[in-house]
């Protein structure tokens, strides 16, 4: 890495080398049985230079390929965007605990038995269900060095568990799923299993909704599938800078229901979305995005912040290319209402656990429309059964303007979202029938 930096410094005003190495060990079960054991080693080095004021970029899986990396970066810098930012000078970072050596020490035998336990627990409840399960341990190491003398690195361990079940009766297919991940080994499957068994219980009977407007509770999973991706794009500083965010002019204004709060936070110990610094070497922080319904901040990387006249919020992420702003982890704190109290409030409505296809419309504008892949009819405060061939549609900004209640049941969905159930009083529901 040092060699890449030294050579790049000779041809450019400033330079930065970012490298990732990872070791992943997934164990996978198919059709109730252990099927695959894998190990994946990977490394990649990315070079960003500023030459004649412009950004050049190259990436290679071979960090010894110094000449090619530098040549490609110089070639692209001829056409690259003007660099408006400066790379960070040497920085001291606050410790964020994201590495536990115990993750790597979990033996394959233990991972296999965790998978077997999950499958046995689900099949113990519903004999005919067929399960796929996965248990994985990963270690990722990141390092950044730049020509201003900043040099930083961290390692992160991630342990994850997941299970999916399919229950087929004739041409009726039910899919249930849940997963969990942490930077520490997960040894207790109860949390995951409780949720899957509840999905199975609630979907046991079938029910039919009617085409009209009605109240809808999005569970944490349901919110993740329907509401979150438009918000992530709206709080992205780049979308705002281009004037394409519906929230662009809304800082300080009560755009959402005053019960809604959202943070972006990369500093929570042992969470997969956490780190001491982002992919440009900017220190991590907790950024309030919405407080009492009022948008307060957007998320920035270095270049976007410079163009917008702001500071980076430590949200520079690389998905294989140049850094770009994106959320570290979206945190929606819990409200005060229990899930049962929300249910009790509904005469006729739906609970949405997964809305399929919701992220495939005009996400920028906040419109969503999807098929209720897993969701339930509520009648007189009680779950009546699973609905099918039913669509729920709306606009995130209209829906979150008037929230009936926010649940006290917040939990992590995957590695990057913490959300409670969200009870919305009036959504458009279309039913085939």
């Amino acid at each position: 890495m040092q060699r890449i930096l030294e050579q790049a410094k000779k041809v450019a005003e400033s330079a930065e080398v970012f490298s990732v190495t990872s070791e992943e060990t997934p164990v996978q079960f198919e059709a109730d049985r252990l099927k695959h054991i894998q190990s994946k080693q990977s490394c990649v080095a990315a070079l960003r230079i500023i030459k004649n004021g412009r950004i050049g970029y190259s990436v290679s899986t071979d960090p010894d390929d110094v000449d090619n990396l530098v040549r490609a970066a110089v070639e692209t810098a001829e056409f690259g965007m003007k660099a408006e930012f400066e790379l960070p000078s040497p920085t001291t970072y606050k410790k964020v605990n994201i590495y536990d050596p115990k993750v790597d020490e979990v033996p394959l035998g233990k991972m296999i038995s965790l998978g077997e336990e999950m499958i046995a627990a689900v099949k113990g409840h519903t004999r005919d269900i067929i399960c796929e399960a996965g248990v994985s341990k990963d270690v990722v190491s990141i390092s950044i060095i730049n020509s201003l003398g900043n040099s930083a690195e961290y390692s992160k361990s991630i342990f994850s568990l997941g299970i999916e079940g399919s229950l087929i009766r004739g041409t009726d297919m039910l899919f249930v799923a849940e997963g969990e991940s942490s930077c520490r080994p997960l040894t207790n499957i109860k949390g995951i299993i409780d949720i899957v068994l509840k999905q199975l219980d609630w979907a046991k009977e079938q029910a039919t909704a009617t085409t009209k407007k009605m109240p809808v509770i999005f569970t944490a999973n349901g919110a993740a599938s329907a509401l979150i991706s438009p918000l992530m794009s709206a709080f992205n500083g780049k979308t705002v800078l281009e004037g394409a965010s519906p929230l662009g002019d809304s800082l300080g204004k009560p755009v959402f229901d005053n019960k809604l709060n959202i943070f972006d936070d990369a500093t929570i110990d042992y969470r997969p979305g956490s780190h001491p610094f982002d992919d440009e070497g900017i220190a991590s922080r907790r950024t309030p995005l919405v407080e009492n319904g009022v948008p307060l901040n957007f998320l920035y990387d270095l270049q976007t912040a410079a163009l917008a006249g702001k500071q980076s919020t430590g949200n520079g992420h690389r998905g294989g290319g140049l850094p770009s702003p994106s959320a570290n982890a979206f945190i929606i704190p819990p409200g005060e209402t229990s899930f049962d109290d929300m249910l009790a409030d509904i005469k006729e409505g739906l609970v949405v656990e997964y809305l399929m296809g919701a992220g495939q419309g005009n996400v920028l504008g906040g419109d969503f429309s999807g098929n209720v892949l897993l969701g339930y009819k509520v009648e007189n405060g009680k779950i009546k059964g699973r609905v099918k061939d039913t669509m729920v549609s709306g606009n995130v900004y209209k829906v979150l303007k008037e929230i009936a209640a926010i649940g006290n049941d917040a939990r992590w969905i995957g590695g990057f979202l913490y959300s409670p159930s969200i009870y919305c009083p009036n959504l458009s529901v279309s039913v085939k029938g």
Partner: protein
Amino acid sequence: MDIEVIGRKIAEELKKHKADHIEAHIQQSVSSHITYRGKKLESIGKSSGAGGNIRVQLNGGWGFTSFNSFEDIPSRIEMAVEQARLAGNGRSWLAKKAPVVDKVSAGIKVNPIDIPLSEKKNLLDEYNAVIWKTPKLQTSVIGYGDGYRKSIFIDSAGSFIQQERADVSLRLSAVASDGSDVQQANMSLGSLGDFSRIQNLHAEIADMSKRAVALLAAPQVKGGEYTVVLDPVLAGVFVHEAFGHLSESDFVYENERMREVMTLGKQFGGKHLNIVDGALVPNLRGSYKYDDEGVAATKTYLIKEGKLVGRLHSRETAARMGEKPTGNARAVSYRYPPIVRMTNTYIEPGSSSFKDMIADIKEGVYAKNWYGGTTSMEMFTFSAAEAYMIKNGKIGGLMRPVVLSGNVFSTLQNIDAIGNDLDMNEGGGCGKGEQSPLPVSNGSPHIRIQNCLVGGA
């Protein structure tokens, strides 16, 4: 680095290890990308990479190790054998296949990688200028990517297959805003390395840009059931989601009830419905000579005259179901094992003209172009980027984009007209599990579906 030399060494090394089956994949690739946001070029970059994997089957279990470093291959093979031994708890199933030794070129006149960045940038500058001629535009995105990849497949039975492949893709979107409301229109194209396929698109791009602005004033379709006519692009996404994924045998082969649902001979649609998938269909983004298990590509009828007649296989699923492998085992890269995937999927043309198709529709929706689609096997959604009301046989004004939803057991039966104007779309990438985007193409003529569920206000 010469990966052929590494490949020869691995071929020798494989002979020293014992398992039911061992295969290796090695790849070397170069790619470049150019992105515009708004009026400016935002990002331009080049990547190069090399890596490989060892995949082992033993007693029905699979071991897999992938790597970027080609050092110490023997211990990686040993590790994969151990993993397979630990995972195995039955017998191995793998359809028979004769060893293949072959060398396949990318079959292109000009490698997109060799075209100077300045030439690519000039074309994109022209397109961006076209986009920004439209008044009231808020922003735009152009994403161009190309790549060239050399792959070697080696197996313990003596196969040694070298294949080259090039790819070009272009996505554009125009975003219009009138303050709080934001609307967008997009285009998505691709080719098997032929750069000329993304040239001369100025007129289409101008239309796209104008449509984004027009959408601001467009009303929303009221949710409910409609007679829906799909254009070839959206119908292609429909066939991919509605039936293509259900034809992938890895969802079926170990699930008795799923096998009952997917019994060959079962009627899924009318006599006029024929659905095909095949990498053997030439010169499309999902075309190749051998899949990632070294099985020769085929053209497979999934549905013939409305009946289920075939499905897509890897060597393992074919052996388990007593059927022939179809050459559909694909991996997005050496980082993943091959799994059953689609290639070029389409509905064969019928006899209806578009005019006849809409003539007797009192109230319906004409849905065009795509944002995306997804499936859970039984139920699926696919989203149109453009929609128009059909009233009394006439196409009406532009509506907001719509998401359509179907159920495989009724929606295919509800296709009551199939056009004569087959067209393939090569702009899509397919995702399955963690493996995305895989280059595929899909297509169809115009089709009409009765009682299709449309989400809306």
